[in-house]
C-alpha cells in the first residue's frame, strides 16, 4: 500500500501524518495506524470543536462533574445527584435505522451507568426529512422502533422528546438520545481514571465481533455515492444484555470492587483503554488475544477498533478480582482480566506474546490535533426597523387553522411516543404527552426533563436559535415550576471545514452559552456531530439541548390543558420580541424577527415565574411556541375536549420571545394577574375556558375538528405507518 492509500484508508490527513511522525519520532507502524485513525477522528478527538467547547460556561456550585467524563453530574441536595448526557447516532441510523437508533440509546445509557448512576429517564430528539423523501417512511419507522425496542426492554422510561421535519434532513436524519441517571445517598460516583499499579484491567460483557470496525472515523465524514461500499458490519444492540450489564455494573460499584470504569463506545477498546490510562497518568499492558471474540479470525486491528455493543473496561484490585468475577457470573456475564496497570505511562499492546506497540497515551489522546477552523463573526439578522406585526398578516379562520393543525410538522406525535414505555420505574409524573417530562425522586421532589432547539428558529438566525435552544426549554420548565439546573447538548452540524458551517456553529454556541450564563444553568455534558452532510447538502444547524429542572414538591404542578369551564385564560409576557415564525417559512414569506430583551432580565422573570407557579393556583400552563397563540390554544383544548372563547389583539400566528398561556380559576384571576404584573411580567386576560368550540376573531371551530385534524395529521403523511 502506498502512503497516500494508507492515509486515505485510515482517514488521516498529510499534516496529521506529519504530526504523528513527529510525535513518535518515527513512522507509525502496524496497529498504530488504526489507533491514530480512531482517536484522532473528529468523533473521538473533537478536533474542530474543542477550542470552542473549552469556553463554555460549565461550572456552578451544584456541578460535581463537568466535561471530561462520561457524563456530567449535578448535585440535587438531600443526598441525590443526577448524571445526564445526550448523544447523537445520526450516521448509523441513516444506514440501518432500527439498529442505529437502538445502539444510540444503548450507548448513552452506558455513559450514565458507567458513572454509577441508575438510569431513570430517556428522551429523544429526532429530525427527519419530508415524508415523501426517499426512504423517509422506512427511516421514521425504523428509528422509532429502534428506540422503543431498546429503551422498553432495558426498562428505562422515555419521558419526553421532540420531532422535527425539514427538507434539509432528507439525506441526513438526526437521532439524538438523552439519558438521565440517579445517584441516591450511598451510591458512589465512579470515574474512568485508571490507577493502582498492578491492578487488573478487566473486560466485561459481550464478546467482540467485527461490528462497526472503522465506525468512528466513518462518522467523521460526509456521505457520498461511495458510502455504500464503506459500510462496516452493522452494530447490533442487545438491550437484554445491556440490562444485565446495568444491574451487574451497579452492583460491583456499590460493593466497591471497581477502581475505574469506562464503557467501550466509539473506537471501542482503543479509546477506552487509552483514555483511561491518559486520565490516570498511568500505563497499561493489554493482551489482545485474551479479549473474548465472537469470530476467532479477528486481527488485532479488528479487536482494537471493534464497536461491538454492551462492553465495559474496568480496573480492579487483584484481591477483589474473584468477587468481581463472581458478581458478573451471577448475572450471566463474562469478566476476564486482559491486562494490568503499570507505572510507566505507556500503553503496551500484546497479541499472542508479541509486543505490537507501546505508545504514551498522551500522544494519542492529549496531543490530538486541535483546529481553529475558519469562521466569520456573526452579524445578527434582526433588524427591528423592518419588523412590525402589521407587515405580517396571514388570514386566520377555520380553514387556515385546520390546515396548520393537520400538517405533519404540527400535528400529534402520539404515534411515536405510544411505542415508548413512558412509565417503567413507577416514577413518571409527566409523560411524553406533556411539554415537560417529569419523574418523582425518592426524596419526593420532582425532576423535570425537557429538550430544546427549534430548527425553524435556527434557520432564521443561528445565534438567535442558540439562545432559543436554552431559553425556550428553560421557560417550559419554569412554567411548570421547575428551576432549570443544568444543560446537555448535542451539536449537529455539517462539514466544519466549510467556513459557513463553522460560522453558524460558533454563533449558535455563543447564543447558547449566553443564555446559560444568564440562567446560571451550566452546560455540563454533550456531544458534537459534524459532517451531517450528503452530496454537499448540509442539515439545518441543529444544536439540540436537554435541560433538567428541579421542583421541591409534587403539588402545584400545572397541567398543560384547559381543565374547567369558566377558568380564566391569562397571557403572560416575559419579553417583547417576536418572530414571523414557522408559518412565514412554510408560506414562503420573508421571515423576520426582533429580540431585544436583555438576557438577565429574561432570566430574572423566569425566576419569578417559577416562584409564582410554585406558590400554587396556576391550573395549567403552556409556553407559546411555533405557530403562535393559535396553535397553543388549540392544543390546550385537546385532552379534556373543552373549548374557549378568546378576545385578544395579538396576531394568532406570531411567535413571541416569550409568552406563557396560563389558566386560573375566575376568583383568583385578578389577584394572579396583578401578581404577575407586579413581577414585571405584563399579563392580560385573553379569554375564558368553556364550551365545545374554540372561538376567536373569525374562528369558530369545534374542538372535535381540532382533535381530528391534530390526530389525523400523522396518517395523512405517513400512510404506511399507521
Amino acid at each position: 500500500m502506498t502512503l497516500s492509500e494508507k492515509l486515505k484508508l485510515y482517514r488521516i490527513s498529510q499534516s496529521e501524518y506529519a504530526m504523528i511522525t513527529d510525535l513518535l519520532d518515527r513512522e507509525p507502524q502496524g496497529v498504530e495506524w488504526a489507533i491514530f485513525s480512531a482517536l484522532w477522528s473528529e468523533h473521538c478527538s473533537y478536533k474542530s470543536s474543542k477550542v470552542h467547547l473549552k469556553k463554555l460556561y460549565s461550572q456552578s456550585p451544584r456541578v460535581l462533574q463537568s466535561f471530561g467524563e462520561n457524563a456530567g453530574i449535578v448535585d440535587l441536595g438531600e443526598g441525590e445527584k443526577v448524571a445526564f448526557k445526550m448523544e447523537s447516532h445520526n450516521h448509523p441510523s441513516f444506514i440501518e435505522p432500527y439498529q442505529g437508533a437502538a445502539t444510540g440509546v444503548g450507548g448513552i445509557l452506558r455513559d450514565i451507568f458507567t458513572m454509577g448512576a441508575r438510569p431513570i429517564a430517556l428522551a429523544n430528539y429526532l429530525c427527519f426529512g419530508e415524508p415523501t423523501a426517499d426512504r423517509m417512511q422506512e427511516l421514521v419507522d425504523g428509528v422509532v422502533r429502534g428506540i422503543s425496542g431498546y429503551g422498553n426492554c432495558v426498562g428505562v422510561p422515555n419521558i419526553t422528546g421532540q420531532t422535527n421535519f425539514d427538507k434539509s434532513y432528507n439525506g441526513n436524519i438526526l437521532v439524538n438520545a438523552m439519558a438521565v441517571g440517579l445517584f441516591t445517598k450511598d451510591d458512589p460516583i465512579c470515574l474512568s481514571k485508571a490507577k493502582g499499579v498492578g491492578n487488573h484491567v478487566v473486560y466485561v460483557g459481550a464478546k467482540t465481533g467485527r461490528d462497526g470496525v472503522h465506525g468512528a472515523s466513518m462518522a467523521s465524514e460526509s456521505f457520498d455515492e461511495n458510502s455504500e461500499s464503506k459500510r462496516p458490519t452493522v452494530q447490533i444492540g442487545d438491550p437484554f444484555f445491556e440490562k444485565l450489564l446495568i444491574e451487574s455494573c451497579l452492583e460491583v460499584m456499590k460493593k466497591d470492587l471497581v477502581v475505574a470504569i469506562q464503557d467501550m463506545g466509539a473506537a471501542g477498546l482503543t479509546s477506552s483503554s487509552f483514555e483511561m490510562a491518559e486520565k490516570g497518568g498511568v500505563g497499561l499492558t493489554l493482551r489482545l488475544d485474551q479479549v473474548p471474540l465472537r469470530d476467532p479470525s479477528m486481527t488485532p486491528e479488528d479487536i482494537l477498533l471493534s464497536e461491538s455493543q454492551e462492553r465495559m473496561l474496568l480496573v480492579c484490585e487483584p484481591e477483589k478480582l474473584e468477587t468481581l468475577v463472581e458478581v458478573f457470573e451471577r448475572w450471566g456475564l463474562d469478566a476476564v482480566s486482559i491486562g494490568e496497570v503499570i507505572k510507566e505511562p505507556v500503553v503496551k499492546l500484546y497479541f499472542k506474546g508479541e509486543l505490537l506497540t507501546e505508545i504514551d497515551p498522551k500522544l494519542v489522546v492529549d496531543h490530538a490535533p486541535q483546529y481553529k477552523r475558519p469562521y466569520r463573526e456573526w452579524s445578527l439578522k434582526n433588524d427591528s426597523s423592518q419588523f412590525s406585526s402589521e407587515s405580517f398578516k396571514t388570514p386566520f379562520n377555520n380553514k387556515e387553522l385546520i390546515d396548520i393543525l393537520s400538517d405533519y410538522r404540527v400535528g400529534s406525535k402520539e404515534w411515536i411516543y405510544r411505542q415508548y414505555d413512558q412509565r417503567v420505574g413507577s416514577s413518571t409524573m409527566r409523560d411524553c404527552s406533556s411539554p415537560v417530562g417529569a419523574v418523582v425522586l425518592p426524596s419526593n421532589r420532582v425532576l423535570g426533563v425537557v429538550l430544546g432547539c427549534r430548527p425553524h428558529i435556527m434557520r432564521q438566525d443561528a445565534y438567535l436559535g442558540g439562545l432559543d435552544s436554552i431559553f425556550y426549554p428553560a421557560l417550559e420548565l419554569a412554567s411548570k415550576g421547575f428551576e432549570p439546573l443544568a444543560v446537555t447538548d448535542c451539536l449537529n452540524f455539517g462539514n466544519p471545514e466549510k467556513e459557513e458551517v463553522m460560522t453558524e456553529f460558533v454563533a449558535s454556541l455563543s447564543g447558547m452559552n449566553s443564555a446559560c450564563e444568564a440562567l446560571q444553568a451550566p452546560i455540563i455534558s454533550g456531544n458534537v456531530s459534524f459532517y451531517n452532510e450528503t452530496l454537499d447538502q448540509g442539515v439545518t444547524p441543529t444544536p439540540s439541548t436537554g435541560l433538567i429542572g428541579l421542583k421541591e414538591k409534587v403539588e402545584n404542578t400545572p397541567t398543560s390543558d384547559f381543565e374547567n369551564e369558566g377558568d380564566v385564560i391569562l397571557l403572560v409576557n416575559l419579553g417583547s420580541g417576536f418572530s414571523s415564525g414557522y408559518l412565514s417559512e412554510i408560506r414562503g414569506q420573508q421571515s423576520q424577527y426582533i429580540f431585544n430583551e436583555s438576557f438577565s432580565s429574561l432570566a430574572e422573570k423566569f425566576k419569578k415565574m417559577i416562584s409564582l407557579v410554585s406558590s400554587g393556583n396556576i391550573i395549567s400552563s403552556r409556553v407559546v411556541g411555533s405557530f403562535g397563540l393559535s396553535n397553543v390554544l388549540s392544543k390546550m383544548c385537546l385532552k379534556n375536549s373543552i373549548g374557549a372563547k378568546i378576545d385578544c389583539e395579538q396576531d394568532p400566528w406570531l411567535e413571541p420571545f416569550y409568552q406563557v398561556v396560563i389558566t386560573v380559576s375566575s376568583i383568583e384571576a385578578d389577584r394572579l394577574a396583578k401578581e404577575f404584573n407586579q413581577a414585571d411580567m405584563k399579563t392580560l386576560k385573553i379569554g375564558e375556558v368553556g364550551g365545545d368550540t374554540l372561538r376567536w376573531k373569525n374562528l369558530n371551530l369545534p374542538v372535535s375538528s381540532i382533535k381530528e385534524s391534530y390526530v389525523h395529521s400523522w396518517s395523512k403523511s405517513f400512510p404506511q405507518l399507521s
Partner: protein
Amino acid sequence: MKKVGILRFPGTNCDRDIWKSVELKNQKPSWLWYQDHFNPKDFDAFVLPGGFSYGDYLRSGALAALSPAMESLREANQKGFPIFGICNGFQILCEAGLLPGVLMRNKEGRFIDQWVDLKLRNQSLWSPVKINQVFRMPMAHADGRFYIQDQDYKKIQDNGQIWLTYENNPNGSVGDIAGIMNEKRNVVGMMPHPDRALFDWMGSDDGLEFFDWNLS
C-alpha cells in the same frame, strides 16, 4: 407482616416497582432469583413482575418459564399459594402452563403504552376488589393479545376464570381479556400495570387495591 416473594428473571425490569408497591401495603418483599429453588412455605404470596425476561427472545416469557425458580413456583401453586403475574409475569405464567392461553403480538403489531379502563369480572381467591368495579391504569406491552382456543375460552368463561376485561380493547385480545385466573383461583395474571397507578401524581391510584391482598 405478610411475606411476598418477588421473582427476578434476567431482564425483569419492574422488580423494583413491585417491591415499592408491596411495601406501600405494609408487606415484606424478598427477592427470589430465577436460578435458585425456594421453599414456598417461607412466604405468603408470590409476584412475577413485568419487564422483558430474556429480552422477550423466542416468545415473551418462554425462556423464563424454564427457570429453576419456576419449579418451586409450581410447588407453591400445588399448595394453593397466591401467585400474581403482571405483564411479562402474566406471559411467563401462561408459558409455564400455570394459566391457560397465551399472549401474542398486539393486533397492530406494535408496542403500545396507554391508559386503559379495566372491569373486574370475577373474583380471585384473594383479591379483595368488587365485581364490575372499573379501574384505570397504564398498560405497556407489545405482546398482550390474549389468545385461547374457542373451546377453552368457553371453559374459562363458564368457570368464571375471566378476571379483568378492557373497556376498550386495545390489542385484539379474545373476549377483551386483560387478566385471568386459574381454576383454583389462586393464580392470577394481568397485562396492565397496577404498579404504575399507586398515587394521584402517576395519573391514578387505582392500582393500590391490587396489592391489598386479603390473605388468610
